[in-house]
């Protein structure tokens, strides 16, 4: 009986969540904000430096083990912050590109589709990259996916610039 009561409580929670989600969807559909104001700055070169295995090897050779582990943890936390910012920006660009996809100009539609594709891929990479970074604290795992994430971010910025040539993209490309 206790589990049945728990099921009832869970279903009520789900119901409330769904109603809130519907309300939010309704509000978001009517809200007009410039995504450029919400863009978080990402220094992609600094991120590349953080995930560079040679840089890590260099630090490992020159620092005592305890200090290296401490620095490594800090670098991983910083890399995670960069990834979260990149994923956040990708989310904002998705909303811009979704609007651009309904443009009558086929070139705008093509640019928006490429941007959406890149932004979605970047968010997928981000989903995998953060747990991998934390695993890398203890296990020597490959950094290829993190490099791919940095490349993807740069490609995405390029697509925003291309889209901005033909579509009111606000000051997004400058903010990126």
């Amino acid at each position, binding site marked *: *009986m206790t*589990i*049945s009561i728990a*099921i*009832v409580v*869970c*279903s*009520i929670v*789900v*119901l409330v*969540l*769904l*109603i809130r*989600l*519907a309300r939010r*969807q309704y509000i978001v*559909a009517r809200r*007009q*904000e*410039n*995504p*450029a104001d919400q863009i978080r700055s990402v220094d992609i070169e600094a991120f590349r430096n953080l995930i560079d295995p040679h840089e890590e090897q260099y630090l490992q050779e020159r620092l005592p083990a305890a200090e290296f582990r401490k620095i490594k943890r800090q670098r991983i936390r910083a890399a995670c912050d960069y990834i979260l910012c990149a994923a956040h920006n*990708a*989310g904002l660009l*998705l*909303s*811009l590109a*979704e*609007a*651009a996809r*309904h443009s009558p100009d086929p070139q705008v539609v093509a640019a928006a*589709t490429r941007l*959406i*594709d890149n*932004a*979605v*891929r970047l*968010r*997928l990479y981000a*989903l995998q990259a953060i747990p991998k970074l934390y695993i890398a604290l203890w296990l020597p795992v490959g950094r290829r996916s993190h490099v791919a994430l940095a490349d993807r971010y740069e490609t995405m*910025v*390029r697509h925003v*610039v291309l889209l*901005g*040539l033909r*579509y*009111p*993209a*606000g*000051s997004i*490309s*400058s903010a*990126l």
Partner: protein
Amino acid sequence: MSFLLRIAHGLWIFCALIQATLLWLVARRRVYQQFPFFMTYLIWLLLKTAVPLAMDYAPFVTGDQYYYAYTIGRAGAAVLSFGVLYELFTKTLCNHRALRDLGSNLFRISFVILLVFATALARFVPAAGTGQRMAELYLLERTVSVLQIGLLLFLFVFSRYLGVSWRSRAFGIALGFGILASVTLATTAIRSQVEPVVRSGVSDIIDLINEGALLSCNLIWLGYLLGFESTPLPPPRLPDDDLGPWNQELRRLL
């Protein structure tokens, strides 16, 4: 017939009318081209509502006949609902090239995981109550509801994380399903444990809640079908000076 049961019957009849309207709208607005499983589900839903309703008022129909009609109706609706959920997964996620294969794979993986969980739940919290035959049926319904809610929540959370935009109709269908499944989960969880042999006041209240949930779900679908597909609005401001990044890109290309 008690007062509550009379209201539940009224809602039942109203539901059948709304479902017929929904079906007409789906055919008229050619929504079946986009959501063929949803159209099939609606046809079945109308039959599932109208046939037991007619049987309930027919004096020659026995309790066993009603039970079989009710069971077949519920089983068919459960199977078709998974078709609609699959349609929602593919329509929402497969719009994007990066997610084309991921959509159907995610549906399969999450379905298997949820099936294991729901089966374990049915094994460890079996049906109780004196009305064993109906209690077992509600247990099956509870299992199906767990699967439906799990799939829908996964779809909502995943698409929200990826920032994938929902077409308003797909969102309306998913929302209606979610509300119906969560109410059904709560009521079947109670009924599978306390179902009596003879109807009681609790049965009447639960029937009323179920009919109310089905009606709300149908009205949500009707609302989203009556509205047009919304397109995202363009950003409000015209471009500021973007020359800096453009120069940077040109320099990179050169």
